[in-house]
């Protein structure tokens, strides 16, 4: 179950529709609507972390399903850049890109589960 320390950027044709139909998947995460994943900018991710987010999630369409063709790839590129900047700055905030169509809550769930498990492992492996 996601809490309010997760910020989820949701595209209009995928993430927002999925969230409207299956709101339980994102739980208490803070939702930020964007028209397409390609609208995501590095600064949006940094701003979310600045506001206290420990996890930034972008829900984009699967490849070949984006209304604007390149949204998920663009979002991935920028999310990687933001994650690198956050690491450089010493932040442990997690950046997650989930590619899930509007009718695929299970894809979002499995991406989240895998990412949360990764994060838990990283915490376990981190030196005390």
């Amino acid at each position, binding site marked *: 179950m996601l809490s309010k320390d997760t910020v989820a950027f949701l595209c209009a044709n995928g993430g927002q*529709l999925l969230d409207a139909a299956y709101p339980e998947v994102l739980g208490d995460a803070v939702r930020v609507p964007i028209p397409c994943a390609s609208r995501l900018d590095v600064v949006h991710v940094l701003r979310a972390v600045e506001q206290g987010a420990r996890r930034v999630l972008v829900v984009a369409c699967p490849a070949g399903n*984006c209304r604007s063709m390149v*949204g998920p790839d663009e979002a991935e590129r920028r999310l990687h850049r933001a994650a690198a900047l956050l690491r450089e700055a010493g932040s442990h905030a997690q950046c997650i890109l989930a590619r899930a169509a509007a009718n695929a809550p299970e894809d979002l769930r499995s991406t989240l589960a895998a990412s949360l498990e990764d994060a838990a492992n990283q915490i376990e492996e981190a030196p005390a």
Partner: protein
Amino acid sequence: MAEIPRAAVIGAGPAGLAAALKLADGGLRVLLLDAEDRLGGSPFEFGCKATDRCANCYACLTLQQIRDVQTHESIEVVTAARVTDLTGPPDGRVLHIGDRQEPVSGVIVATGYRLAEVETARPDYGLSAVPGVGTALELEKRFRSGSLGDSPPRTLAFVQCAGSRDSAIGRDYCSRVCCTYALRLARAIHHRIPEIEMTLFYQDLTPAGAGFDALVAECESIMALRRGLPAKVYQEPGGARPIVCRADTLTGRISEEPYDEVALSVGLWAREDPELESVLGLAKDEHGFYEGSSQHRVLLAGACRGPMSIGEASEDGRVAAAELLRRVGTTVRGAVAIIGEDEHAEAVARREGFEPVRARAMSGVAGAFIAETDEAAVPVVGGIFVGRRADAEEEPLPPHVRSLYSKSGYGKAQSARRVAILLDFWAPYSRIAHEKALELAASRTGEKQRTWILCRHAFTGEQGLEALMTQVRESGTAIIHLPEAPEVESGLLTYVDPGMGKRQELKVDLIVAAPSLGPTSGQLLDLDAHHLNGRARLGAAHPTETPVEELQPPSNPHLGLSGTPREGIHVIGWLRDPGTSREAARRAEAAALADLATPRQGGRAEVDPAKCAICLTCIRACPHSAPVAVYDEEREKDVSFIQPEACVSCGLCVSLCPASAISHSSHSDESIARNLEELHAE
């Protein structure tokens, strides 16, 4: 002021939802009714079948359509609704929904299909009787919920045509969508749970759209595809597994094999609703699908007319809605460019009040294109590119083989004595080729004429083709399924019979085959590959050496079956997908009637010319060709300008602009930051 006319749409599946949106966008008030207590129809049951890529099943679009319907101010939705009567004179019809009475100017019936009753129609398949036997839809639900992955079967068999293509139960028609459904589902399952060994038993693999060859090729590498349906599925004696008993119709071998699970691909049957049929005067075909209505302005859309895919049903809904708009008298007027020749597109355009313009190229934006003809530049509201087959001399067919599409092939074959028709071997799977082959075989009625059709998979997934195939078989045409192309010499075919494993020789007078399809070299002058797949703008006509496959627009559910990333531009015909003549006509109709207005999505991107460095980043990146360079007289320099008619407001250019010169009217950086602050403050 005259009251805005109201139309009713009965059924809120993909066809009904699309029809309601089209009618409402066309200026009517719409009453959308559904017997269920939710919207979405049958596709609401389907999950996403994407792997690393979208599977183009269109199921996800249902949620988008539902959102658009629910937020459209001209659409009223009534669920759990029963239509009980339609009364009044033709110009004053009143629809009765229980106690409620609504004046309507027209009605669209889009009540969809029902799944075949396999338990009763094919009890020998063991559904609900043999442990481990279920439907493919049940399997999909378990897959999506994760329970299939929690305890996966080691072996899984798909059985196609459960309840269709079966004359013994009076269902001698192909349900058209089941093969693609099962193959997409199997591919998705393999993607997540690769340890499951899968087999699919089929009569013929029937494609429901573009990309079928690639889908089959991919599935051949991950599972066994075996010709021949089971005679029965029974419980393993002393065990719990289902046994599939069948004869391989390619090799003739009989086998009885246990599987951990069997998933039946259930056929599509006509929905039965005697009250609605009586009220609306609906006529039915021999299989119960609706053919028409005796009532004024009652139109049909979607799978209630016959099996069709989700994308096709949506398209069908839009076409029916456009027809109703025309009859009510609210059609938009203008001119539409048609690049290439298509009599259907031209006829529909004319009928709808559009002036078809035969053009060589186009430029401009949705609603305000300029079409270049041989004589002049003409303003048009939209454009349709029509891909045609290759020139005869360019067909990549072996020597001694003539084209099925040419007069020297098809024409001569009508009178020749012994004719072999070869399909699928030297070209991608083509539904039009199968249709033409059956038509040719049916036309050869001479006493001494013999016909052989050699193919990988016979296609009958179109209304009337199953009956046509039965007819030609009964009149002596042999249909031979071969996995590989036969060897061809002059008047002689040699192939290995899969059943006997022996070489066979077939002496014929004429060999015709389906060549690969694509635009003619002349048309390549008209097509700009970059425009079609959305990487750059549509330019003037110029030669291109781009391979044909790269000319094809991307498959994407958001673009529909004919749309391109460029608003107002559609691609149909051979270039898009070599469908049957009926499909081609429908696609041309849909393209000619497509929405040519600006998309509904809110907001748009705008350039601040003072900041624009005309670096061309936005112009190169925009998939919709919305930004263009214009001369700014005030600043005496070129600047980027985003054409609002072409902009779908995705915001890509806003995020890419290195000079931060582009802002988004509804999703600016500031508004997103404010949104984050407010949400966190909560």
